[in-house]
């Protein structure tokens, strides 16, 4: 564990303090310049944008995942629904993202169907914008929200819900005063499991977001490929890692384990 996790991270950390090689790679001397460059407003806005989209995806995943998890936890056919939630994992995320492109593009299924029904004349701009990226992220990470929420709801002592009704709470009051507060650990776990990977995503934004939607993940990817600026790419991913770890500690309650 320590070797497989630690060594690559240590290499990235070391690279982030080195200088750029002429044809990629890294050279001496050691420098903090690449971290300083991250404070450029250009990159600042990329970070902000990434946090914004990851935050929105997290909120949507929890908002959609909570009722779904509640439905599954109370259904007599839990196992069937749970396997349906996990089913998409059997195919590659890349292929599923391409499938969304086929649905959303100008000549995609949605636009051709709507045009065929004479609902629209011009194709709707469904692809290559922030909305498409958000849709792709919510689609891809919804199961990561549903599973911890389901686990918490399933474990919940049913007599607490009965007690709430017994004391005069209507169903929505029980939801707001008992079910959701008691589900807080599940909501935190879901938020972390969705937010952290969304923050570092590059595939979804690359395929569905077009050239305008550049996120931290795409920035890092570009530095290691097209731009051949490994130290800056490493610095950006170290910054991303620090942000993610900082967030983990921020949402952790006192005395509670991470996740």
């Amino acid at each position: 564990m320590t070797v497989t996790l630690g060594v690559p991270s240590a290499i990235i950390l070391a690279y982030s303090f080195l200088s750029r090689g002429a044809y990629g790679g890294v050279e001496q001397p050691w420098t903090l310049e690449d971290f300083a460059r991250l404070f450029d407003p250009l990159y600042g806005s990329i970070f902000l944008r990434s946090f914004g989209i990851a935050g929105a995806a997290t909120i949507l995943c929890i908002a959609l995942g909570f009722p779904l998890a509640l439905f599954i936890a109370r259904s007599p056919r839990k196992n069937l629904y749970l396997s349906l939630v996990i089913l998409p994992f059997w195919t590659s995320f890349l292929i599923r993202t391409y499938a969304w492109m086929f649905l959303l593009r100008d000549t995609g299924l949605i636009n051709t169907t709507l045009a065929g029904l004479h609902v629209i004349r011009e194709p709707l701009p469904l692809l290559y914008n922030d909305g498409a990226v958000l849709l792709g992220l919510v689609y891809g990470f919804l199961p990561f929200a549903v599973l911890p929420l389901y686990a918490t709801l399933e474990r919940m002592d049913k007599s607490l819900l009965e007690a709430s009704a017994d004391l005069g709470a209507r169903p929505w009051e029980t939801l707001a005063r008992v079910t959701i507060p008691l589900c807080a650990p599940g909501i935190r776990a879901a938020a972390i499991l969705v937010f952290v990977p969304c923050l570092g995503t590059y595939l979804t934004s690359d395929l569905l977001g077009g050239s305008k939607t550049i996120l931290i993940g795409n920035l890092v990817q570009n530095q290691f490929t097209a731009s051949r600026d490994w130290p800056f790419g490493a610095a950006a991913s170290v910054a991303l890692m620090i942000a993610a770890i900082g967030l983990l500690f921020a949402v952790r309650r006192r005395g509670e384990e991470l996740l």
Partner: protein
Amino acid sequence: MLELRSVSKEFAAHRAVANVSLRVERGEFFSLLGPSGCGKTTTLRMVAGFESPTSGEVWLNGSRIDHLAPYERNVNTVFQSYALFPHLTVRGNVEFGLKRKRVNGIDKRVAKVLEQVRLSGKESRLPSELSGGERQRVALARSLVLEPDVLLLDEPLSALDPLLRKQVRAELKDLQRRVGVAFLFVTHDQEEALAMSDRIAVMNGGLVEQVGTPQEIYQRPRTRFVASFLGAMNWVDGIGVRPECTRIARAGRRATVKRCVFLGPVVHVEARLENGETMTAQVAAGDARFSEGDGVYLAWDAADELRFE
């Protein structure tokens, strides 16, 4: 006050409660007593509104309530596990129902009920920071503060340790007298039911076998089941005689001592009759000078014989 009229409850394959009719009067301490699976908890849950009867009616203060949701009924429940909200303090738990009803003077009512159950000063504790007895009192306070017509209690003493249980029995009975609320108390512990109740309904296999005061139920059981569920019973020639009514005498039924069981104040002498049946005689501890194989005579008064069809 509370009335069940021919209430039945069927689950998928079996009949949990069969044709139960009961009346609980205002201010009464009424127990449902029976072994596990006898339908007593299901009966309680139908009064609370967590289960709906397959047939029959539930009436409270002259209105029919069996179609109402739990939050629409003026009855409250003390759960077996107490079901305190773990994320709320003692105060949060106790004022939960008052807040749902949007009543005035919440603080005063919370303070008063916490004083009644001797929890003043513990308002800001979480349930996890309380002892078992304190948790049980929070559960009581949380329900009583709503001034229900009937308080439903589902084996509320079973989670307490045995030493505490007897003490809490007296406290609970005391509290019930003071607040004057009718209690419908579910238990499988006959001693508990006898010690606390004004009246008891003994249930078995979904049916009510007998309803009566503790004395009536114990001294004049109407069925074999009631007789043997409440206290020990000797069966001889189809007649029931309680061990405490059976003496070792100079004359009577000839028997051979099998063993003596020392119980502190009394000794139970088990003896085999000539016809092979075994009887137990209860004698004072000081009188017990019997050993295995001793020949004795067992005697009892005809008035203590219990006959059943």
